[in-house]
């Protein structure tokens, strides 16, 4: 009887184990099935690279939104990568124990804050900051609801991802390697630069890619500060309209206009494909790094 229970549990658990993989597949298939009506209407590439967005006339060019997403992500990465990389180096190589212990909850909390709160904070602080201080500084006019504001908020949101993955990568580098470098007379920074960064390069790339894909799909926080103007952005001070924001903003009316829902699902599917491929790439790199360390 007990053995039977054990076997039964084993079978059930085995079935359940296939669920996560299955969900990913289902999502892909489901979104693409829903996107099919619009793909039947217009070729895929003309949808991706057309700037005409007027759902009422049946024009669904996703190009401005794709550019919006790219701009925001790019701005966020430029700001987030140096800061989080230096933080990770400090935490893994320099920091005394108590600072490390103190910083861990901070990073966890930063990762755990809901994106709406980032959005509220962005509206309260970053948007006025951009419109009153940063834009005049560069001689530009801006309402503050801009690519730059979105990028700034996003940068903070992806700190934890990049820092955590980098820390993991650095800790997989054997300690003896650092000792060798130090004993040859290298300074601590030189050891970091020529040993830790060099050995960890692949892992760092993976960390950045993971941060990038997180930024790519972030919705609410960006939606609240980016301005939502369906045009290809001209500078970081103009408003943009990233893909996730497009989906979130229009769910209400999408059922009432023909092909609209299909276009939005195509947007979601595009998002999914991009994020999936980035993620898979990064995870493969990380698995390889881990294996080497063992």
């Amino acid at each position, binding site marked *: 009887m*007990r*053995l039977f229970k*054990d076997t039964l*549990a084993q079978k059930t658990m*085995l079935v*359940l*184990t296939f669920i*996560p*993989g299955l*969900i*990913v597949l*289902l*999502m892909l298939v489901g*979104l693409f099935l829903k996107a099919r009506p619009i793909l039947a209407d217009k070729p895929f590439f003309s949808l991706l690279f057309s700037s005409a967005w007027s759902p009422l006339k049946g024009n669904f060019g996703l190009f401005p939104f794709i550019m919006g997403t790219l701009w925001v992500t790019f701005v966020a990465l430029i700001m987030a990568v140096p*800061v989080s990389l*230096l*933080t990770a180096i*400090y*935490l893994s190589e*320099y920091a005394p124990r108590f600072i490390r212990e103190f*910083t861990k*909850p*901070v*990073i*966890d*909390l*930063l990762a*755990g*804050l*809901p*994106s*709406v*709160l*980032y*959005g*509220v*904070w962005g509206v*309260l*602080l970053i948007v006025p900051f951009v419109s009153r201080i940063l834009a005049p500084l560069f001689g530009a006019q801006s309402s503050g609801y801009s690519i730059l504001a979105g990028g700034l908020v996003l940068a903070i949101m992806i*700190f934890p991802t990049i820092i955590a993955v980098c820390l993991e990568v650095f800790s997989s580098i054997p300690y003896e390697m650092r000792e060798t470098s130090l004993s040859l007379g290298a*300074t*601590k*920074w*030189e050891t*970091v630069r020529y040993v830790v960064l060099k050995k960890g390069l692949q892992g760092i790339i993976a960390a950045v890619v*993971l941060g990038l*894909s997180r930024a*790519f*799909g972030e*919705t*609410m926080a960006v939606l*609240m500060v980016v301005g939502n103007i369906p045009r290809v952005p001209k500078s970081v001070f103009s408003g943009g309209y990233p893909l996730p924001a497009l*989906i*979130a903003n229009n769910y209400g009316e999408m059922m009432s206009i023909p092909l609209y829902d299909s276009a939005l699902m195509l947007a*979601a599917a595009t*998002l*999914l494909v991009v*994020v*999936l491929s980035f*993620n898979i790439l990064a995870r493969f790199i990380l698995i390889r790094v881990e294996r080497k360390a063992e």
Partner: protein
Amino acid sequence: MTLPLTERRFIRRKIEENAFKVLMAASIFIVIGCLLLIVGTIIWKGLPALSLSMITQTPKGGYYLGREGGILNAIMGSLYLASGATILSIIFSLPVVLYINLYTKKNSRLAQWTRFSFDVLWGIPSIVFGAFGFIVMIFLGLRASLLAGIVTVALLELPIMSRAMDEVIRMVPRELLDASYSLGATRLETALKVVVRQCLPGILTAVLIAFGRGIGDAASVLFTAGFTDRLPTSLFQPAATLPLAIFFQLGTPFPEVQERAYASAAVLTAMILLISLLARGLIKKSTKHIVK
């Protein structure tokens, strides 16, 4: 006076070392400062607008024009939704994690693939979960409801919870399992009576982390849970959620209502802080009584 070449080079290396130290200190300062700034700003803006009636009443007529009422509907909705999703998520993640750690060989291919797919699932943006949940909902002929929201958020929580549990259960010492097996326990008995007990605080932490994520997520419930001013009384009614309440209130053109958005944000912040404090306390506890 010129110093010898080696001397100068030494000074340059020293300067480089110190310059990067300063940069690193600045970076970590930025990271910590950002968190303090975010939490500080929201509490500072939100507290003055917060009142008892805000968290004990549902919105009355004209609430979004600045009239009376509160956000009890959203607070309760979020709690119902996140609790339901968390329970559903435990049902699916705990067996999987136990399976890949106890039933398969260490680092088997299946375990690796499962971890991999959890990681990939983790990376999927919540808006895509929302869109997917929406499709499934339409396919099943459901309307935006608490149930649809729960299912979608459960999907979102699944990878977070599983990976956190996996980290703890992986750490269970081999000897403990062997001891259990040698007493004649089956793997199921070992899993439920030894491993789960041993890791209980860690598992609860994983649950809390996922719960916090579920409470805070807006993009996935936007499509699926709907929004209402009433308290949900059944699974098939739409439910309001706190993040969406914040979003909608902030979106109105009236300053009084926007003030309330800040107050609601302060409530959400307090909830998240509380949850993460609890989780942290549990981590401390979990490392205390564990057989090492």
